[in-house]
């Protein structure tokens, strides 16, 4: 498959950002819900992301290595594609925020016992803590960023 330098670069960044975010979430979700953001565990997790970020950056650099010299500045098509992808990412972010607000409203706006189904009550309600809010924001960011990258790759491949 013929992949342009720009597509390779976008793909590399997408894999890198997704990888590092999934790594963070994988470990952050294991922490107790009431973990404070100045706790040793959480700060340790964030610090552990630094070397991973550096190594990931080197790997992404290797993926797009040799292409930078040939890379020209973004032209009107690149800018158009990025602009359109930004629009899609924005809509995805708004949808994710709306969903999150809906979950918060569902959890705290409904009187206890209102939800008849215990399963629904168990899975559609959650405890809001600083860590859970932060994790939700990270997930929303990941959704928006990934939407942007996938949209860009789609437009480059299928036409814009």
């Amino acid at each position, binding site marked *: 498959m013929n992949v342009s330098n*720009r597509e390779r670069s976008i793909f590399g960044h997408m894999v890198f950002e997704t990888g590092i975010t999934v790594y963070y979430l994988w470990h952050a979700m294991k922490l107790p819900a009431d973990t404070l953001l100045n706790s040793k565990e959480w700060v340790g997790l964030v610090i552990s992301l630094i070397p991973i970020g550096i190594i990931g950056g080197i790997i992404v650099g290797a993926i797009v290595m040799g292409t930078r010299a040939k890379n020209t500045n973004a*032209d*009107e*098509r690149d800018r158009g594609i990025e602009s359109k992808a930004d629009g899609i990412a924005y809509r995805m972010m708004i949808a994710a925020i709306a969903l999150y607000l809906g979950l918060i409203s569902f959890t705290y706006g409904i009187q206890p016992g209102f939800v008849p189904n215990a399963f629904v009550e168990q899975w559609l309600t959650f405890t809001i803590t600083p860590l859970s809010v932060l994790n939700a924001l990270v997930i929303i960011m990941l959704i928006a960023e990934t939407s942007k990258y996938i949209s860009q790759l789609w437009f480059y491949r299928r*036409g*814009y």
Partner: protein
Amino acid sequence: MAKTRITNQIRTLRFFADEMSQAVLAEKVGVTRQTVMAIEAAKYSPSLELAFKIAAVFSKELGEVFTYPDEVKK
């Protein structure tokens, strides 16, 4: 995604311009080779400015390089 309805003669014009490569054309008009490829394949409609630049490279009128289907013009 549907192809643009604007068709073009860039490939033919390149051939008659001493088999000019896409890379050379791209450099002359200030875009990437991928953009020239996308325009040729009717996967991207260039801006008016870029369309004029491309026509100027081949010393042609805009209408000789890019055409729009007749049924839309009416």
